[in-house]
């Protein structure tokens, strides 16, 4: 049984159709990449999956339950964790407390919630700044906090929205390592990313979105080799 299934999902903002009849499924533990030009509707698709916005049409099923009308918090508890493209930390709380909220309210139950959060902070390289207020973090640290906080909700499916942009080579390698270990632990992943080499070193399947339409989904190498994708990504380093 698929972990996540979208069936004919559409969303319009006024006259602008941002998600256009999208259907696909993600199996438990699978990693799916999403690429597409700016404004293609990638982040909107995430917001539909998490319940931050409601679809105009279609159904979304998670773990065998129709969640189309469920609010975000219910979906988090069911196992959908997310990061925001523009980091949204709880700025007056410390880095550690940002994770603590997620761990206490998310889908996991912990005997040692402090240790659980510290493990994630270690893994994401934020342990040193655990007690700093998250409002004082640099943009890169905030992006890492987005990843860490999503992990702290103990998701079955984690949604990552452009978390590799602006990293140095070394940082990018470390990030890929972290995401691979999330994946290895059995968590399904959907990852929106413009840094294609990072994306393709993790995902098993790749989806291309363009003007809200799912242009293609399948094996990353085949998708990247297709003429339509080459045309869209003309000029972008593949």
């Amino acid at each position, binding site marked *: 049984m698929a972990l996540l299934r979208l069936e004919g999902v559409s969303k319009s903002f006024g006259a602008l159709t941002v998600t256009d009849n999208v259907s696909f499924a993600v199996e438990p533990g699978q990693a799916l990449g999403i690429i597409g030009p700016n404004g293609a509707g990638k982040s909107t698709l995430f917001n539909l999956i998490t319940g931050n916005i409601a679809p105009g049409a279609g159904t979304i099923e998670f773990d065998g339950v129709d969640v189309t009308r469920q*609010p975000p918090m219910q979906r988090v508890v069911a196992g959908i964790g997310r990061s925001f493209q523009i980091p949204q930390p*709880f*700025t007056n709380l410390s880095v550690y407390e940002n994770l603590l909220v997620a761990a206490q309210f998310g889908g996991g139950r912990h005997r040692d919630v402090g240790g659980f959060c510290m493990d994630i902070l270690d893994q994401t390289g934020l342990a040193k700044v655990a007690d700093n207020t998250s409002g004082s973090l640099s943009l890169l640290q905030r992006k890492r906090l987005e990843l860490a906080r999503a992990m702290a909700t103990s998701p079955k499916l984690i949604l990552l929205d452009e978390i590799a942009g602006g990293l140095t080579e070394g940082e990018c390698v470390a990030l890929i390592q972290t995401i691979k270990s999330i994946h290895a632990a059995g968590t399904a992943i959907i990852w929106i990313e413009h840094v294609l080499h990072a994306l393709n070193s993790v995902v098993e399947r790749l989806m291309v979105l363009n003007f809200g339409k799912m242009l293609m989904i399948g094996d990353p190498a085949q998708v990247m080799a297709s003429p339509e994708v080459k045309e869209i990504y003309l000029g972008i380093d593949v």
Partner: protein
Amino acid sequence: MKNTLTKSVAVLLFVGLALVPVLGTRAMVQDLFMVLTLLILALNWNMLAGFAGLVSVGQQAFVGIGAYAMFAAVILWGLDPLVGIAIGGVAAIVLAVPIAFFTFRLNGAYFAIGTWVAAEIVRLSLAQWKALGGGTGTSLPKGTTKDMFGVDLIKDALDMSSSAASDALTYWLALLLAAVTLVSGYVFLRSRMGLGLQAIRDNAEAARSVGVDPIRLKAAVYLLTAFGTGLCGALLFIQITRVTPDAAFDVVDWTAFVIFITVIGGIGTLPGPVVGVIVFYALQRTLADYGTIYLIVLGLIGIAIMLFARKGLWGIFTAKTGIELLLLRHRAPKRS
């Protein structure tokens, strides 16, 4: 280390205040009773507006219903006023459910107006309650407060008049309720739910995206603060001994002053209401003779603080000295 110092000072202060009916004058007891009840109301309003973002201007609904429930308990059902206090608290929670049901659909200023309208409706309804005097209100039967449970005990133990003993009793109850409200507020904010509230305050959308349910948490705070406010209302009117709809549901006495106290002290900080109530009392003592001017001065100070010092006097103090009390921080566990 610093924590033990804070705790010792707090305990000393509590003991000192507890001794006032024994060592001080009756006027002092009555004055401090009013200060303590205002503090209770301010602690509740601060939790509501400062931490849960629910800027209610209708808390007089719960003071009033608490007072009326207590009067009903005494006059209609022949119960002890102390039992009436508990009934007042419960009545406030019961009333809070339908008020929340309607006002939680509103946001910001509309929520504020909604809570005020709700309080007015309750006031007008209770003015129809003929058994409790309708629009003109009623008084506690003569001797009620002197016959209150515990008054005889205090009278004999401290060798004072019945009315002084009843003042002492209500005073101690106010002190206890203030202390319990402050401590439980701290414990609540340090709990899972309190952390969720702080997350909502920072970023509601992100909070929902890590599993926090803002409506549920806010509703919990709304009901709990209604309970505290209702208890306080009942206690207040045992001391006042006479209830009218206008006095019990007075928006100036039970909400405007309370907002002022919280704002000057430091909204959204735990020590804020304590600082605010002290300043308020000092201002009241020095300006009370000037009538309306007093209210205008209060208003101007409140506005100035809102514009120039969002975290109130406590915020200024914290920024200048670096001293912080009742911090809500959860420290990351240290590991080898």
